[in-house]
């Protein structure tokens, strides 16, 4: 096993395994289920004046203060119409837990490396930097979200 391939282990872990899926706009995303701490319905939120606009606010997660990032604004998608409550996906990152605000939660899916591909080159730059790759499902595409880069606001910033 040790000399079998030079491919970094990292890639194998990323290209197969279980993914927690969710919807933002008409995009279908997945994050590695091992990086998801929990999924919550919309929480009371404290806005942070003068913060970058992708930051929706702060939530109290059992005494821990967690920053919530609006994924629509993060991906530069149009703001959501209607008043349906958004969902929190709390992901574990190097800098601590961060909540991603998404439209809807999907299933947890098993993915196989055989249907994995790098993200298309012509993807919009705002999304491209946050997406690791794509799983070609039968009826649609599942975009693998890089949670570390998503919560790092320096990534994809247009000055």
């Amino acid at each position, binding site marked *: 096993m040790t000399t079998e391939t030079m491919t970094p282990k990292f890639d194998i872990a990323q290209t197969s395994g279980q993914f927690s899926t969710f919807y933002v706009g008409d995009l279908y995303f997945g994050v590695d289920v091992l990086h998801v701490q929990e999924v919550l319905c919309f929480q009371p939120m*404290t806005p*942070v004046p*003068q913060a970058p606009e992708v*930051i929706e606010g*702060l939530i*109290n997660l059992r005494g821990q203060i967690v*920053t919530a990032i609006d994924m629509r604004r993060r991906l530069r998608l149009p703001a959501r119409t209607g008043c349906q409550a958004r969902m929190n996906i709390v992901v574990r990152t190097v800098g601590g837990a*961060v909540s991603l605000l998404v439209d809807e939660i999907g299933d947890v899916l098993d993915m196989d490396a055989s249907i994995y591909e790098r993200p298309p080159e012509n993807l919009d730059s705002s999304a491209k930097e946050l997406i690791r790759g794509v799983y070609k499902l039968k009826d649609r595409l599942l975009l693998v979200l890089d949670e570390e880069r998503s*919560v790092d606001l320096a990534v994809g910033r247009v000055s």
Partner: protein
Amino acid sequence: MQDQDVIREFLVESHENLSRLDQEIVELEKRPKDAALLASIFRSIHTIKGTCGFFAFSTLERITHQAEGLLCQLRDGQLELSPSLISLILETVDATRKVLASIETSGEEGPDAFEDLAERLRVAAQWKVDAGVESAPGAEGLDASPPCVAEANGGSSSSAPELGGQSWAGADGEDRRKGEDRRKEKDRRQEEGRREEDVQRHSAAADANIRVGVGLLDKLMDLVGELVLTRNQILQFNTEREDAALNATSQRLNLITSELQAGVMKTRMQPIGMVWNQLPRVVRDMSVALGKQIRLQMDGADTELDRTIIEAIKDPLVHLVRNACDHGVELPEVRVRASKRAEGILTLRAYHEGGQVNIEIGDDGAGIDVARVKQKAIEKGLLRPEQLEKLSDREILNLIFQPGFSTAQTVTNLSGRGVGMDVVKSHVEKIGGTVDVFSRAGEGATVKIKIPLTLAIIPGLVITSGGERFVIPQISLLELIRMDGDSTEKHIEYVHGTPVFRRRGSLLPIAYLNHVLGLKSAGRAEAVNIVVLQAEDRQFGLVVDGINDTQEIVVKPLGKQLKGLTLYAGATIMGDGRVALILDVLGIGQGSGVFAAHHEQARASGPQKAQSEIEKQRMLLFRAGSFERLAVPLSLVARLEVFPQSAIERAGAGQVVQYRDRILPLVSLRAVLESSGHDEEPQPDPVQVVVFNDGDRSVGMVVDQILDVVEEAIAVRQKTGRKGLLGSAVIGQRVTDFLDLNEIIQAAAESWFQGVGGQAGDKRILVAEASAFSRCMIRSGLEMAGYRVLEAGNLEDAVHALEGQPVDVVVASWDLPPEGSTALLAAMQRRPEWAKIPVLALADSNKPTQSAAARKAGFQDCQGKFDRIRVLESVAQLVSKAASAEAETVCAGEVG
């Protein structure tokens, strides 16, 4: 395979030993003849050597062994201590530290074998041994004073028989080994005896103390933080319900949580000496390198601080000490020329003051040359000459904290690279502290650091703005100002578009929190709240929509996404479970632009003057029942007395005591404040009593404990609702309740004074005073004397009150907003029906000049604001004078 735990234990122990060694060796240099000190050093080295022999760390063993040999010579007086020897020993300590660090990271001793050092140590010891043998040939043969090499050998073989013996037998000279077995045996026995003693001493210490991981303490602190938050939630919940059982339980929870919090905080406290330990070494190395003579004096090494703060100030302290050695203390010849002692003195002081810890680093050197600082500031382009003209010396001195500033003539490799003082400042400010520098030419300079005791849980003021709650750390809070809507326009003025507020005669820059944060303003509010804040040494007023509450809050860090925002210091969780942001006062000040022009600002008055203008009062603090901190102005207190329980008698419904041939009625404060059945708790014996004089009658108030007398500026937060209390304020960083003496005395001693105030009858007194707190104090005094009291907070209110109903006497504070009480007097003079009303001016008690000015201005009388008796006397006089004047006019009218 070595047991990792045992090695870890060894490392911890060795590090402890080494830090003690550093200190002891420097100490030894001063007292070379101190045998106990030498023995202790010897023991420390010996312990390290013994253990590393056990682990087969050969490099370490080799150097410690040689050092031990050298020390042994010193101990037995065969070798004279010299600075070069001390340096050699210190070098050994450093080498040991290096090897230990390598063991810690890699588990191995590392590549450097320190052969050279070992050799030098050996030569140093050997050479002198020979010299010693020559000079005192008889000594070696005597059993009573065994020679040193044997001692060293004995030590090594008893603790690490194989390794120590094998590797070093040759080096020590085989010839000496012969015929020394008996002596060695003896040494070993001695050594063992000493060890047993050590073990006994150690085990005694171990019984009383246990070693706890810092991680566990941090975890505990976090949990206590959570508990405090939950407690706050319960307390809030409690206020919404009318449930006696819940009430009692939550009060108990409150008490226990506070105690637990205090206890856990204490476990995290460490004496500042922990950081200071390394400083003697720093000073010693510096003075050798610079050719200076510096003595380090440390004062208050047992002052305790939270360990997170200890960590944070470590580097700034070392830097400041280096700086003082390098730039502060002069060379010996320079000192002698200036007729000072050749030896410079560096003083470190630490002490607690008002909930903060002060650390001072002072030297008796040349002081900071203000002219050079000026010149440097211009050279470095920090300021223009005309800007410097406007600055006071103190402000110029503080320029050394600007980035890129260094006045050292030469850049040494020790300090003076122009980074440093600004780093010190930013480090200290990061933990909520302040740095200040004082200097007297030729006498030295002192850097003073003020830091909070702890960071984790702080008192904060909760405010609202734009519909959101925010917390302001109480440490930066100076006072709260509330103005009613109508008068707002007049109070906040604009200088070239910048809002300012006239506060007691000086201009305070104003920022609107809503604007700073880009929030919607709440529209026209009926009142304007200004929170006066201080960051660094600058003050500004922050206009907020509402002021809610003070709370103990637990500071939680913000995620890294928000780290770039300077407006917030963190976040906390409020009683209702929602998150609230903690404002960073410095950041808000910068964000709003009130600080931006700080160098240009013509601050002619200077920060110190502004400071002294804050209302200061002497307050007596005490404790009663569940009220941990209660206060009354000291000016109202006649005496503090202690009576034995047996002296207390019952008379009528209450308790009395015979006092100076009179009967002094006693009021149990606990009974008044906690009307529930708490009174069956036995009162302590003897009883502590605060005696109040009011005219010719006295009342004694029984309290549990007198805590303190403080003189402090008071930020009052007005809140009534509880019987017997006027409201709360922050004194010494803690929320303190103010007693309503009037109500307390009325409530419990009614029977004693009924009808006493009768003669004052229906006289109306108008009290015009800006501070709600002072107004309340004066009001309760007057009401107790039987007057009816009207209140006014400013000129407009006062005129309004005068229009409303006839008033017999007006009592107006000297600094009545907006323009002082003379404006009120002038307004009254204009109306013939008011012109005759006597006006008593209230001056700040410590300013006699105001009193003279008041009489000149046409006031009938002037008294100190908190001198209750004199105020009452004066009012009584004025009332009777007015009455007789009225009678005269009536008579005159009849005659005419």
